[in-house]
């Protein structure tokens, strides 16, 4: 009976993940084509798209989303490839590698706020250079953040996506025969970076292609980062859709639904374009390999890449430090690098209000992560026990909630909930979070779970243990470290979610992230400092546990230390 259920677990989990996405898409598409009488009258047709085209910001918003997504993704990938090609294998890279996971955990909104506080006209970088280098006695009247070209937004996305792609590349490297391919290419006279790009990267890219597409779809459609760093007139398409969807005027939701359809098409086009570009790059690479170019990029190229990596690291760390500084600052006049007066007043003022959101964020994160973990473990155990590997189609379905833009299907889910008379609450938000937490939990957990020495299981069985006992007494305890790591990643993902909390919660479920992002328009830097730091702390705390606990737990077991 239990085995019967376990055998079907992967299918059930996939269905549970994919169904809300498809239902949501339907709930978004139907009103846009006038096929569902949700917001007033329903007349089948394309009338609403005419209204959408009539919006003056339509084409600029479209172009902006397209540009931001493609440039941010290409830039992130380029930086990551350069970084690994040039830097991998050195001691300093090892150190950088340890910084990756916590770097990844810092919520998008906090990274974006930190970047604002660094590069804004009154930000820390300008203060550092003023007035001795710039001559500015007051903040210059420059549009650095929220620039119409979206470059600040691109910078924010690159800062956040480089650690993610880097982790994916490192994981893929562990699974491919990289070091031998590298050795072979170098023994044939290729410089390290060239050897990596020509001999190893093609193997690695095959494994990170889906994560790259996830980054592309995400960058095109992200809302919270775009609210903080992106331009406002017009904003990127996703932000405008969010505005329409949350407008008290319900008729605007039709417009939002039409916008979501366009957004979906836009992402589809961008992915198609990316896949086409892949072929071009591959052709170029093959020609390079044919021609026998062996020399590396030279010191200038290397410095550029390392500088980029340092900038990424610096932006996150310095950004958090400046956030912290603002949160305890009293008066802080312009060119001064340090606050004129400092105190805990802001914390005393905001923390009592934040406690409520903090607990809610924490509860949602824990619940969503635990459910996702149970689902992932069930899936992986079924896969191991019945030798049923997940097919290519399954992997795409697994990534579906990350590939289909949130803004394209969450409004539909919201609409369906409205139709069904379901009030969005903490429970609904938690369920929505599971959709986005599960793929990451699975991603982190699956490699170590599959790499577990199956002979240990056979040994356990030969000693008379049932499959269940092997799982609970052997496999799970031995996988404590990756399980905790997966939970930490899951909680960080949940804490950082903005749109699901906003849309599925119907604006009534306030989390640290929704509150922090809501502060963006007000510009109260001290309040933003407090909220963004609280958000970061909640996302980082599980990582501390995940790093420290296995070592403490297994402190008397040498054989458990490298795992």
């Amino acid at each position: 009976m239990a085995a019967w259920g376990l055998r079907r677990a992967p299918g059930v989990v996939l269905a549970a993940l994919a169904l809300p996405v498809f239902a949501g898409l339907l709930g978004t598409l139907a009103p846009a084509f006038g096929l569902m009488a949700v917001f007033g009258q329903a007349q089948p047709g394309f009338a609403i798209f005419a209204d959408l085209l009539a919006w003056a910001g339509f084409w600029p918003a479209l172009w902006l989303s397209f540009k931001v997504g493609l440039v941010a993704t290409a830039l992130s990938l380029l930086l990551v490839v350069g970084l690994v090609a040039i830097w991998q294998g050195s001691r300093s890279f090892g150190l950088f590698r340890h910084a990756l996971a916590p770097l990844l955990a810092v919520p998008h909104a906090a990274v974006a706020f930190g970047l604002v506080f660094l590069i804004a006209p009154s930000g820390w970088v300008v203060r550092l250079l003023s007035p001795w280098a710039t001559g500015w006695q007051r903040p210059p009247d420059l549009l650095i953040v929220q620039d119409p070209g979206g470059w600040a937004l691109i910078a924010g996305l690159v800062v956040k996506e480089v650690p993610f792609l880097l982790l994916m590349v490192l994981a893929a490297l562990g699974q491919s025969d990289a070091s031998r391919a590298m050795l072979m290419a170098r023994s044939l006279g290729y410089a390290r970076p060239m050897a990596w790009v020509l001999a190893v990267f093609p193997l690695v890219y095959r494994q990170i292609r889906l994560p790259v597409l996830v980054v592309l779809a995400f960058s095109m459609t992200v809302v919270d980062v775009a609210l903080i760093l992106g331009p406002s007139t017009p904003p990127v398409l996703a932000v405008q859709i969010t505005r329409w969807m949350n407008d008290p005027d319900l008729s605007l939701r039709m417009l939002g639904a039409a916008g979501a359809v366009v957004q979906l098409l836009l992402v589809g086009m961008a992915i198609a374009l990316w896949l086409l570009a892949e072929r071009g790059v591959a052709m170029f690479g093959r020609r390079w390999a044919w021609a026998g170019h062996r020399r590396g990029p030279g010191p200038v190229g290397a410095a550029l890449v390392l500088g980029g990596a340092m900038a990424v690291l610096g932006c996150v760390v310095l950004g958090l430090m400046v956030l912290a500084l603002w949160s305890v600052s009293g008066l802080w006049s312009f060119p001064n690098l340090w606050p004129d007066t400092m105190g805990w007043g802001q914390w005393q003022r905001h923390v009592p209000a934040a406690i409520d959101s903090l607990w809610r964020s924490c509860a949602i994160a824990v619940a969503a992560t635990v459910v996702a973990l149970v689902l992932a473990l069930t899936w992986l155990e079924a896969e191991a026990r019945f030798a049923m590997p997940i097919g290519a189609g399954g992997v795409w379905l697994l990534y579906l909630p990350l590939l289909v833009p949130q803004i394209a299907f969450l409004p539909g889910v919201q609409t369906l909930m409205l139709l069904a008379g379901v009030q969005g609450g903490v429970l609904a938000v938690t369920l929505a979070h599971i959709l986005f937490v599960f793929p990451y939990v699975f991603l982190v957990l699956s490699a170590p779970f599959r790499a577990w020495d199956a002979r240990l299981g056979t040994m356990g069985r030969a000693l008379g243990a049932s499959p269940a006992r092997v799982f609970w007494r052997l496999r799970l305890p031995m996988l404590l470290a990756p399980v905790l790591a997966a939970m930490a990643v899951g909680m960080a993902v949940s804490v950082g979610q903005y749109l699901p909390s906003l849309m599925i919660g119907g604006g009534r479920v306030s989390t640290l992230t929704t509150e922090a992002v809501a502060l963006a328009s007000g510009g109260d830097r001290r309040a933003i400092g407090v909220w963004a730091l609280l958000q970061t702390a909640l996302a980082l705390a599980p990582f501390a546990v995940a790093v420290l606990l296995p070592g403490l737990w297994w402190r008397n077991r040498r054989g458990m230390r490298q795992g």
Partner: protein
Amino acid sequence: MAQNAQPAPLVLNGLEVALQGRVLLRQSLQVQPGQIVSVMGPSGAGKSTLLAAIVGALGPEFRLRGQVMLGGKDVSALPTEARGIGMLFQDPLLFPHLSVAQNLAFGLARQVRGAARHRAIEAALADIGLAGFGPRDPATLSGGQKARVALMRTLLAAPRALLLDEPFSALDADLRGQMRDVVFGRARQAHLPVVMVTHDPQDAAAAGGPVVHLGAPSAAAP
């Protein structure tokens, strides 16, 4: 698991393993209690597949025909844990998260409880010359000590047959002879039918039993 079962032979009755319609191996064999049959053959001849088939650890993608008879009953439909067949690998495969004593206790039948359980583990440790090693981290043991713990863990599960998968090939030459004596001695003492897969002719010579040569997998096999 039958604690005090009568010694009985291990019999393979036309055991046949096929993968996607291709027959990987076909074997009939009779191993008497206390007898050690050595299975030899080139890599890829299906030696490890044979052991996996006997113990029930083949993946579901394999097709199995024939019988594995133990104590007069066909166990080939039973799950691994219900077969009562113990196994030792080239690596001791001690569970790294459990102490030495917990590793031994993992093998001991559940019916032994409370103080008796502690006494049984103590006695087992003393038996292999490792008295007082119970709380130790298995990773801190020497290669020979690990091998002895692995053997004792398997014996504590009171198997009715024993499979050895190149059990001595990871050991130093001097330790190898010593462990051979220990393992073979214990198996004979317990009247266990033993099937040993090995590359080493000295293993087979020391075992003293019949030698089965598995041929290279024939591409022409039906």
